[in-house]
């Protein structure tokens, strides 16, 4: 289980907001966080990944803490078992698809299994510039999973894709998540995307996390 209570000041546009959120994500489930631009979604994800230090609160993974403001404990991203799929995929352009996976782990067999899982086995030796948007997204997903993370974080996983691809890739992410059983937090501004992928849904608005409203 991932239990977090986070406080963090952040600036969106000209305004300053205060992120103040708490949630316990059940092991193996998918928490979808719905929110408009500037609501603090990406800040929350970055805090969970360890790319930003919160102002206060805690992040607990089972019995161990990744962050505890009261003890000034901050585990850097390298030491957290987190897989993050960036909105822009952040694939290493100088490495092939397989090279991107092997960068994270030397386990070649697992890398090939994951590429098979995301239907990219035929593209193992292609460079990111030779891939379509959906293929890049699937590479980023496989790369995030190769180290068997305790927590998978997805930042707007489908928003850069066209509608047809969005549905098929959404189903694929759903299938991969179910097969690996990894606890997942995804953020998106798209209700459809959240509904397609999540088992639990919350809404983030002006820094607060609430049960989702139907008129959103």
């Amino acid at each position, binding site marked *: 289980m991932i239990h977090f209570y986070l406080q963090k000041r952040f600036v969106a546009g000209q305004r300053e907001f205060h992120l103040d959120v708490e949630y316990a994500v059940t092991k193996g489930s998918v928490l979808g966080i719905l929110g408009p631009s500037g609501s603090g979604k990406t800040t929350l994800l970055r805090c969970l*990944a*360890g*790319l930003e230090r919160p102002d206060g609160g805690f992040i607990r993974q089972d019995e161990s803490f990744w962050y505890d403001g009261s003890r000034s404990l901050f585990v*850097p*991203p*390298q030491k*957290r078992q*987190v*897989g*993050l799929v*960036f909105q*822009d995929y*952040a*694939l*290493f*352009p*100088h490495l092939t698809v397989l090279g991107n996976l092997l*960068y*994270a782990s030397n386990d070649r067999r697992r890398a090939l299994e994951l590429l098979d899982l995301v239907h990219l086995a035929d593209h193992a030796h292609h460079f990111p*510039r030779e891939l379509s948007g959906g293929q890049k997204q699937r590479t980023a997903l496989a*790369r*995030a999973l190769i*180290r068997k993370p305790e927590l998978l974080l997805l930042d707007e996983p489908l928003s850069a894709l066209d509608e047809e691809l969005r549905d098929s890739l959404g189903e694929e992410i759903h299938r991969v998540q179910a097969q690996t059983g990894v606890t997942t937090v995804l953020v998106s501004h798209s209700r459809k995307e959240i509904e397609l992928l999540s088992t639990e849904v919350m809404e983030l608005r002006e820094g607060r996390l609430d049960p989702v409203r139907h008129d959103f």
Partner: protein
Amino acid sequence: MDWVPFWVSFQLGLWVTGLLLVIAFPLAWLFAFSKRGWVVWLESFLSLPMVLAPTVMGFYLLLFLSPNGPVGKFFLDTFGLRLAFSFPGIVFAGCVSSLPFMIAGLKTGLLGVPPSLLEASYTLGKGKWETLWRVVLPNMKAGLVSGMVLTFAHTIGEFGVVLMIGGSLPGVTKVVSIAIYEKVESLDFATAHLYALVLILVAYPGMLLLNQLQRRESRRSQ
């Protein structure tokens, strides 16, 4: 034709480029990513060699590097090394004079690497050094080459600073630009032409390589 000035220039270029690669990298990183207010003051100060007259720089460097100057005295007392009118002295002066060119190339290269690549590397369990070697450097090749080519070219073309710090000691501090100046002064235009032609033939492939690499990098990032 005397090839020794070319050899001195070539050695000077290699020493300055090699040293500056190491010295300028942390500075370029600081100037590219630090948000601290004093950084812009330091960057502007270190960029001065780009705009100052070489004689102004040469004059102050000579004061600093002479046996009674603070830097020159330190090197003489500590390492027994005389900087003024010596090869190490023109290497030192070349480093100061070419520093902004190396910093500019490296900084452009660093800014061209998307921050998300570094963050992705961290979340994949890699530390800062490994990220630097395996992600940052391979993705800033054009910046690296640009910094190295411009630094080398600027150093072997350096005239005023080298003349003021090193004089014109044959085989020691007499670089090719000074040799050309002396040939023109003695009205030996034919040799001056030859020296200049060799310099152009050396510089052109460097610039060609640089521009081709930049074009390739720009196509790759599209």
